């Protein structure tokens, strides 16, 4: 009887561990989690049908917190982990490991009816910080800016402050949107709208991408070449965060993401693939 019970218990434990091992929980960035990661997961699942995915895209902060809390195997993030997040993780015995999975050019978008075709980095800073309030100040038709930004839990929100605003505060009039799609939709509907979205969201009807004039005086549009060469000023890596070196199923998925199929999907949905050595 004792042997029968122990065999049953062992079988139940094994079944439980297999079940847990075949499920990959991925949380974090909306930039990565809205399109790219679900498509890559689908492709991975096609080759590994026993694997189940749970993907929650609610902002980079939630992804990094999920690794710290142990509630996800992969934390998607469109920004680097902050020192306080790293120390909080270490306090719980978690060692954050970043892996670059793709690059993203953060595109400045305006309504397609807007005549402004390019902006300098200084003008972009002035617009998003509220130093200027009217399109006429940057060569456009008179009209107050309608500024659309991501919400505060978004990695893109803080990345934009760092890359484009010299870490200054957003204009008080800026409106916070839940995701890239909402920003693109608002700008498409508002002739005075301006916002920023990942490259994956630049093909929404009704919007146009503005070229950015950097210090060298050249107007640059975000694309694979300018992002990889870092000549586009608002380019950034995107990350998978794991607790230490990924292993098991997590490592398999990370490798798949960095492999030919994963990077191909990244390119298809508007990201810039990680350059091959």
């Amino acid at each position, binding site marked *: 009887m004792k042997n029968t019970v122990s065999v049953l218990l062992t079988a139940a434990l094994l079944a439980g561990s297999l079940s847990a091992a075949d499920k990959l929980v991925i949380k974090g960035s909306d930039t990565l989690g809205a399109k790219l990661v679900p498509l890559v997961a689908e492709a991975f699942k096609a080759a590994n049908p026993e694997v189940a995915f749970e993907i929650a895209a609610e902002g980079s902060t939630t992804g990094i917190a999920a690794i710290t809390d142990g509630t996800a195997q992969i934390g998607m993030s469109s920004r*680097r*982990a*902050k020192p*306080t997040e*790293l120390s909080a993780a270490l306090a719980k015995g978690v060692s954050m490991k970043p892996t670059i999975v793709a690059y993203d050019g953060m595109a400045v978008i305006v309504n397609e009816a807007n005549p402004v075709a390019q902006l300098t980095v200084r003008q972009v800073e002035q617009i998003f910080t509220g130093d200027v309030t009217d399109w006429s100040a940057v060569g456009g038709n008179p009209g107050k800016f309608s500024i659309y930004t991501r919400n505060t839990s978004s990695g893109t929100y*803080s990345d934009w402050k760092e890359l484009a605003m010299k870490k200054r*505060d957003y204009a008080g009039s800026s409106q916070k949107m839940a995701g890239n799609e909402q920003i693109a939709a608002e700008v498409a509907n508002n002739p005075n709208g301006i916002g920023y979205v990942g490259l994956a969201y630049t093909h929404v009807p009704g919007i146009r991408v503005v070229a950015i004039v950097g210090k060298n005086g050249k107007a640059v549009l975000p694309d694979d070449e300018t992002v990889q060469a870092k000549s586009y000023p608002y380019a950034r*890596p995107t990350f998978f965060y794991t607790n230490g070196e990924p292993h098991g199923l997590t490592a398999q998925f990370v490798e798949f993401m960095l492999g030919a199929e994963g990077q191909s999907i990244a390119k298809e949905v508007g990201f810039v693939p990680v*350059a091959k*050595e």
Partner: protein
Amino acid sequence: MRKLPLALLALCGGIALTAATAVAQDSGPLIDLLVKKGLINDQEAEELRTDLTKDFATNTSAGKLNLGSQITEFKLGGDIRLRHQYQETRSQNTTLTTNRTRERFRFRFNGDVQMQKGWSAGFALETASAADSGNQTFENGADDYSISLARAYVAWQPRNDLKFVAGKQRNPIYTTDLVWDGDINPQGVAELYTLSLGGKDTLEFRALQSIMDDNNEATAGRAGNDAWLFAQQAVLTKYFGGTKLILAPGYMVYSTSTVSGLTNETPFNGDTSNLSLVTFAGELEFANVGGGANSVKLYWDSSYNTEAADRVHKVYALPTADKDAFAWLVGIGYNHGSGKLQGDWSVRADYRRIGLGSVDPNLSDSDFGFGNLNQSGYKIGAAYNLVDFCSLNLTYFRTSDIRDTLKHAVAGLDKSSILQVDLVTKF
């Protein structure tokens, strides 16, 4: 994953061993350069960045702070002062002198925050709730003591020459403790405008609207009015080579009201009427005296109440005299060194005379004649820096009355003397 090259590991190790925590925050440009030169790829750069950030986050206290992005500077500081005080007093119309020894301390903790777009804010915590003193006397067998909020303010400086401050704040008026005790932080709104006169010369206009007592408006008459102090001042700062001249004429007036419930060390409840003070303070400082950072300073202050006769007669119910209207102070000081380094020392002495109707007794120095009016005398002080952040200070006050035989809470002191021995440690 690619392994970091040996040379890079050596570089990282060097950074870690030498100044990892200091370098961590500034390593971005260095890492970017390594990527640009092809020494490492982006992935290796991220791992390096993360390692350095972890090191910064775990091995430095600064790395554990999570400050809002609007904050550009957050300064914390304060001091602890241990004091031995010996005091003697004698009231008018008596020959009895009383003396007392007090062992006291003062704790202060300040935070000042600079933010974007010209905003700033600050706070100060200190022992004791009295506006004019942060001293707490050691008493009652190892008691614990309360901490009070001495400052809480917000400031906005839209331009370099214009600043607004609201809340309980540092006194914005240039003055001495003849008119305004250095411990008193006014509460209200201040406006400061600075006009540049070329070089370091400036002409400042300062205004303060400070609430002195909040009363219930539902109460009819004077008891229902709020007591406000309105102070305005021009401050000219002019340099003649190494010599600095400051001239600061001003005017202070109160809205008429009763005041009550003050917690000053020597509280003077009563009435704010008939206080219309014309003030004039200033200093002449000679820098680089005898070489080095030594300096000699002549300083003065004065206050003339244009309604002194009415104040003495109506508010204090005492007979008036010509000398009641005027308060003045002249002093001289010598600083050997900047006062910030070990071994620096200073001495100063002033003589002052405070007429019965000349100033607001709630604001003038609480140590000189214990805050009484109708006093004349001197204050002598010396300080020596034991180390950069700790000084030993001696201060002696001696006063006597100007007019005899007055029986009143603000004018009844015949003689007083106070000796204070302080050990002040800043942190």
